[in-house]
C-alpha cells in the first residue's frame, strides 16, 4: 500500500447535512481531485501529524476526519497464522473439538417460535417450516445464549472504555506492575495487538463487535443449518466473550489502579468482610448491585473526599461489589446474586445503586416496599426512571428522600456519588423508624395460614418442600424453615403462586434471621491477573502434573443444594494442593462458611497462584485472567508464540494444562458464553444439575476408540490415548459426584508418570471418599507402573492383573501388557498435524 492510498483509507468526507447527497458526491470528487493533483505530499504529512478534524479552507461544508493514523508498529513478536480470526478461521479447530466431544442436546423446549411460520414442533428431531432440525435449533439457541452473554461483557467493556477515556483520557498506560510483562494475553493471542494504553483497546472492541454482528446474523431464519457450524460459531462467540472480559478488566485495572502486581496487589491484597451480617445498619447504607464499577467508585471517592468513609456503609451484591472492594477495601460484600432478593427485602439498604447485569427486573417494586430509593446509572438498565443526570443534586436528593420518585436515573457516573451519599444520610433516620422485618406474631400468622397445597414447591426451581417446613414452624419448630434459607436460590416464584399470598421469602428469612445476622465471612479482594513470575514457578509443575490441576470455581449461585458446595469444592481441592482460583458469585459464597476454628478459606489458605492457593481473581470479567494464566503457561513456560496464534495455544492447553472450570450454580447466559470460551481454549468445565438447561454439553465417548487419537509432534506418530480430558462440558447431579469428576477432568496426555500418579491418587481418593468405591475407569489412565499411586501400587497392579487381565512382571513390578498406550516421558502431544516437526 502506498503512503497515499493508506492516507485515503484513513480519511472520510463528512457533509454538514446542509446539502443534498449529490452535492456531497460532487464535493468528494472535487476533494479527491484536489488531493491527487495539488496536495498529495502535503496531506500525507498532515495526516501523519494530526489526529482529529481538519477543515480545508475554501472547501465549504467539507470536513476531513482523521480517524487513526497508522504508525509503524514495534515488532514485538512474529505474527501468528490467525490474527483477528473470523468466523471460519478457527473452524477446523472447533471441528476437532466437536469430533471428540460431540455436542449433546437436551431440549428445554420442543418448539421454535422465532418466525411467523411457527410455532413449529421440532420434537423427535423433526424439521421446522424453515427446514431446521431440532438438533440444529438447539445449537442455534446455544449460539443465542452465548451471544447474549458475550454482548453483556462486550457492552460492559465498551461502556467502561467510554467512561474511562472521558475521565482519564485514552493514554492511560496499561501498566500492570513489575511482575506482569504479558499484560493482555488474550488480546495478544486473538488480535495480535499489544495494548500500551487503554485507547488501544478501541481496535480490539471494534474487532469483537464486528464479529458479534456477523455471528448474530447467522441466527436469522434461513441462515445457518448445520449443528456443527452452530457450535463452531458458539465457540467463536465464547472466545470473543473471553477477549471482551479481558478488555473490560484491564481497562478498569489501569484506570482505577485496581490491584495488579504493584505493591499491595497479587497475593497481598487485603481481606474484606462478606455476608448479610456484616452491614452496620446503624449507619446509612448504600447498596450497589451489578457489574460496572464507575458509579460505585464515585461513591467511594465522595465518601473519602468528605471524610465519610467511617460514617456510611458501602456494600454490594454480585460483581460490582468485587470491583468496589478492589477500589475501596472499606466496602463490604453483602452477598452474591442468590441473596439479592432477600437483601433488598431485608431493607438493609437506604439507597440502592444499580448499574448493569444481574439486577432483578423488579428492583424498583421491591425497593419501594422497603422505602429504599433506587439510582439507576446505566443505559442498559433504566427501569423506567426519569433522567436526572444534570439536575441540581439538591433537588434530586430532596425528591428521593421525600419519596416523590421511586428512583432516578443518573447516567454520568461522576455525578452518582454525591446524590447517593447525601440521600442515604438523609433518608436513613427516617427509614430506621419503619418496621421492615416481620415480628413473631406476624410470622406465626403466616405459617399457620399455610395449608401445604404444594404450589410453592411446584414453582420452586429446585423443588423445595416449603409446606412441610411451614407446618413444623406452626408448631414452634422453625429450624426446617430456617434451613431452607441457604438452599433457596432467591427467585421469589413461590410467593406469586401462594393462594393465601404468604410472603414466603420473608417468612423463611424471618425464620433464619438469627443466622442471617451472624452471616459474616472474609474474602481476599479480587487480585486480577496472575503474575508472570508466578507462572514461571508453577508452569512446569502444572504441565508435568505435579501440581495436579488448576480449578476455576466460577459463575452464578443457582446451586442445587446451597452455598456450602462452593466452600466444599474449594476446600477439597486447595487442601490437596491444586491451585483454586475463584471469581464472581462462587468467590463470594465460598467465603460464607468457616472451619471449626472459625476461619474461612481465604484466611486458612494463601493467595499465591501456587499449590494450595485460594485465590479470588475478581469479578466475572476477571475470569479472563484464568484464561490468561493458562495462555501464559504456554507462552512463558513453554515459550510458544502468542501473537495471533490461538489454535496452537488452545491445542497446547487442551493437551497439557490440567485446568478445569466449575460453574456449580451456572445460571445466566454469561455463564454459557464463559464456559464456551473456556472450552474453545481447551479447558473443560463441570456444571451443576441446572447446567443441563443450557441444552448443550460437550461429552466424550471413551468406548469409541477413534475419537481418541493424538499425534506425537516429534515424529507424527498417531496414538490412541486415554480420555484426557474426557469431557469439555458435563453436568453432575450432586457435589459428591462432581468432586471426583473435577479431578478426572484434570488428566492430560502430557502428564509425566509422577504427575499422573498424583492426579490418579486424588481421583481415586475423592471417588472413594465421596462415592465409597474405586472409580470404574481408573485403569484407563494407567500407562506404566509409575503412573500408579505409590501407596497402593502393589494392590492396584494386582487388580489390573485380576480384573483387567493385564500382564504384570511381578519381579520388576512392571506392566508388560494392557495399557492403551505406552508411557514416554518425551511425548509431545498435539492435535494439529501442522505442528509435527518431522514426519516419519
Amino acid at each position, binding site marked *: 500500500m502506498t503512503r497515499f492510498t493508506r492516507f485515503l483509507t484513513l480519511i472520510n468526507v463528512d457533509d454538514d447535512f446542509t446539502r443534498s447527497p449529490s452535492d456531497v458526491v460532487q464535493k468528494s470528487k472535487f476533494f479527491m481531485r484536489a488531493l491527487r493533483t495539488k496536495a498529495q505530499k502535503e496531506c500525507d504529512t498532515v495526516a501523519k501529524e494530526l489526529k482529529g478534524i481538519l477543515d480545508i479552507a475554501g472547501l465549504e461544508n467539507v470536513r476531513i476526519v482523521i480517524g487513526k493514523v497508522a504508525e509503524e508498529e514495534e515488532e514485538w513478536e512474529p505474527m501468528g497464522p490467525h490474527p483477528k480470526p473470523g468466523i471460519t478461521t478457527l473452524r477446523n479447530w472447533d471441528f476437532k473439538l466437536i469430533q471428540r466431544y460431540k455436542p*449433546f442436546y*437436551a431440549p428445554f423446549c*420442543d418448539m421454535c417460535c422465532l418466525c411467523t411460520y411457527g410455532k413449529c414442533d421440532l*420434537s423427535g428431531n423433526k424439521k421446522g417450516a424453515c427446514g431446521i432440525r431440532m438438533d440444529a435449533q438447539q445449537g442455534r439457541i446455544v449460539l443465542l445464549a452465548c451471544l447474549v452473554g458475550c454482548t453483556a461483557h462486550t457492552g460492559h467493556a465498551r461502556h467502561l472504555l467510554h467512561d474511562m477515556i472521558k475521565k482519564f483520557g485514552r493514554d492511560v498506560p496499561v501498566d500492570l506492575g513489575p511482575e506482569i510483562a504479558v499484560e493482555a494475553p488474550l488480546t495478544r493471542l486473538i488480535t495480535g495487538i499489544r495494548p500500551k494504553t487503554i485507547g488501544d483497546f478501541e481496535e480490539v472492541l471494534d474487532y469483537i463487535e464486528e464479529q458479534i454482528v456477523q455471528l448474530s446474523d447467522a441466527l436469522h431464519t434461513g441462515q445457518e443449518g448445520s449443528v456443527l457450524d452452530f457450535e463452531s460459531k458458539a465457540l467463536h462467540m465464547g472466545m470473543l466473550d473471553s477477549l471482551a472480559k479481558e478488555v473490560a478488566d484491564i481497562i478498569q485495572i489501569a484506570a482505577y489502579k485496581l490491584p495488579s502486581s504493584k505493591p499491595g496487589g497479587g497475593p497481598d491484597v487485603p481481606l474484606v468482610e462478606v455476608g448479610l451480617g456484616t452491614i452496620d445498619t446503624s449507619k446509612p447504607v448504600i447498596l450497589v448491585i451489578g457489574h460496572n464499577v464507575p458509579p460505585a467508585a464515585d461513591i467511594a471517592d465522595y465518601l473519602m473526599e468528605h471524610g465519610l468513609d467511617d460514617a456510611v456503609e458501602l456494600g454490594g451484591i454480585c460483581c460490582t461489589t468485587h470491583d468496589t472492594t478492589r477500589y475501596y477495601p472499606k466496602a463490604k460484600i453483602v452477598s452474591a446474586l442468590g441473596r439479592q432478593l432477600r437483601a433488598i427485602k431485608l431493607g438493609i439498604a437506604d439507597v440502592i445503586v444499580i448499574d448493569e447485569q444481574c439486577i432483578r427486573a423488579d428492583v424498583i417494586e421491591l425497593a419501594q416496599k422497603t422505602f429504599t430509593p433506587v439510582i439507576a446509572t446505566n443505559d442498559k438498565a433504566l427501569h423506567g426512571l426519569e433522567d436526572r443526570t444534570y439536575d441540581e443534586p439538591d433537588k434530586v436528593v430532596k425528591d428521593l428522600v421525600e419519596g416523590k420518585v421511586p428512583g432516578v436515573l443518573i447516567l454520568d457516573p461522576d455525578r452518582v456519588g454525591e446524590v447517593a451519599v447525601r440521600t442515604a444520610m438523609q433518608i436513613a433516620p427516617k427509614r430506621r423508624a419503619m418496621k421492615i422485618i416481620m415480628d413473631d406474631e406476624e410470622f406465626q400468622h403466616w405459617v399457620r395460614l399455610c395449608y*401445604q397445597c404444594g404450589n410453592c414447591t411446584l414453582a420452586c426451581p429446585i423443588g423445595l418442600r416449603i409446606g412441610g417446613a411451614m407446618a413444623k414452624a406452626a408448631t414452634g419448630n422453625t429450624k426446617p424453615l430456617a434451613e431452607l434459607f441457604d438452599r433457596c436460590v432467591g427467585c421469589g416464584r413461590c410467593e406469586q403462586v401462594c393462594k393465601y399470598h404468604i410472603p414466603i421469602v420473608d417468612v423463611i428469612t424471618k425464620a433464619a434471621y438469627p443466622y442471617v445476622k451472624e452471616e459474616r465471612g472474609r474474602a481476599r479482594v479480587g487480585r486480577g491477573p496472575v503474575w508472570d513470575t508466578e507462572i514461571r514457578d508453577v508452569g512446569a509443575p502444572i504441565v508435568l502434573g505435579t501440581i495436579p490441576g488448576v480449578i476455576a470455581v466460577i459463575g452464578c449461585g443457582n446451586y442445587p443444594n446451597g452455598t456450602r458446595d462452593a466452600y466444599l469444592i474449594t476446600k477439597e481441592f486447595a487442601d490437596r494442593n491444586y491451585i483454586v482460583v475463584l471469581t464472581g458469585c462462587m468467590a463470594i459464597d465460598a467465603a460464607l462458611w468457616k472451619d471449626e476454628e472459625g476461619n474461612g478459606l481465604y484466611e486458612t489458605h494463601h493467595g499465591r497462584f501456587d499449590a494450595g492457593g485460594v485465590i479470588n481473581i475478581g469479578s466475572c470479567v476477571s475470569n479472563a485472567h484464568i484464561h490468561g494464566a493458562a495462555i501464559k503457561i504456554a507462552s512463558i513456560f513453554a515459550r510458544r508464540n502468542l501473537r495471533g496464534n490461538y489454535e496452537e495455544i488452545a491445542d497446547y492447553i487442551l493437551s497439557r494444562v490440567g485446568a478445569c472450570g466449575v460453574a456449580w450454580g451456572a445460571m445466566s447466559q454469561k455463564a454459557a458464553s464463559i464456559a464456551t470460551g473456556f472450552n474453545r481454549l481447551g479447558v473443560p468445565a463441570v456444571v451443576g444439575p441446572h447446567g*443441563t438447561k443450557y441444552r448443550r454439553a460437550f461429552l466424550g465417548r471413551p468406548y469409541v476408540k477413534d475419537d481418541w487419537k493424538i499425534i506425537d509432534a516429534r515424529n507424527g506418530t498417531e496414538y490412541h490415548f486415554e480420555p484426557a480430558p474426557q469431557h469439555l462440558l458435563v453436568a453432575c447431579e450432586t457435589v459428591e459426584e462432581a468432586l471426583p469428576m473435577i479431578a478426572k477432568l484434570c488428566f492430560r496426555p502430557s502428564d509425566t508418570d509422577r504427575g499422573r500418579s498424583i492426579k490418579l491418587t486424588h481421583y481415586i481418593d475423592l471417588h472413594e471418599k465421596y462415592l465409597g468405591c474405586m472409580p470404574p475407569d481408573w485403569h484407563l489412565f494407567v500407562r506404566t507402573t509409575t503412573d500408579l499411586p505409590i501407596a497402593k501400587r502393589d494392590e492396584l497392579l494386582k487388580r489390573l492383573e485380576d480384573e483387567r487381565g493385564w500382564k504384570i512382571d511381578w519381579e520388576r513390578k512392571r506392566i508388560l501388557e494392557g495399557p492403551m498406550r505406552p508411557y514416554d516421558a518425551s511425548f509431545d502431544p498435539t492435535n494439529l498435524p501442522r505442528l509435527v516437526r518431522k514426519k516419519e
Partner: protein
Amino acid sequence: MVCEPFDIANVPGPAALGMVAAPETMAAVVSSAKRPLLVVGSEILRDEFYVDIAIEIGKKGIPIAATGHSIKGFLQKGYTENVSIINLHELTNYLRDPEWQGLDGGGNYDVVIFFGIIYYYASQMLSCIRNFCIKPLMRAISIDWYFHPNAAMSFPNIRPKDEDKYKEMLKKFVESIRR
C-alpha cells in the same frame, strides 16, 4: 390422565406431557422390554426404602446405572451385583448412540426407568431421550414422585404427606414386573 409438571412451567411442547400411569401399567412396559435399564439417582438415599426398591428391581435381572452418588446406597446394602457407576449426562449421551454396547456389553437399551434423580436434571435427560433416541425407539419412564412431561409415563406429583401411598405404588410396581 394429564397433570401439572413438577416444575410447573416445564411444558416442553405439544408432543410431550407423557401420560400418568399406574404402577402395573409401567411394570407391564418393563416386563415386555428386551433390554430394560434402571437409572438411579441420589434422591434414593433419602430413605433406605428406596434403595431396597432399586435392589428389588435389580434382582429381577434389570441392570442398574447408579448416577449421582447413589452408589453409596448399594454399597451400604452390599448389593453390587449388576450395579454400574456412571454419570447421568454420560449415560444419556451413550443411550442416544445405537452402537453403544450398554453397561454389560449386551447392546443398547429399549426401556429406561428413571428413579431418584433430581427433577430438573432428570427432565432434561428425558427430553434428550424423547427427542433423539428414536431410531430405534427408546421409551423412558419415571417412577419418581414427580410428574415428568418428558417421560413416556410417570407417576403424578405426590406430596410428602402422601409418601406412604407412593411407597405402596413402588411396591406394586416391583411386584408387577414379570421377567
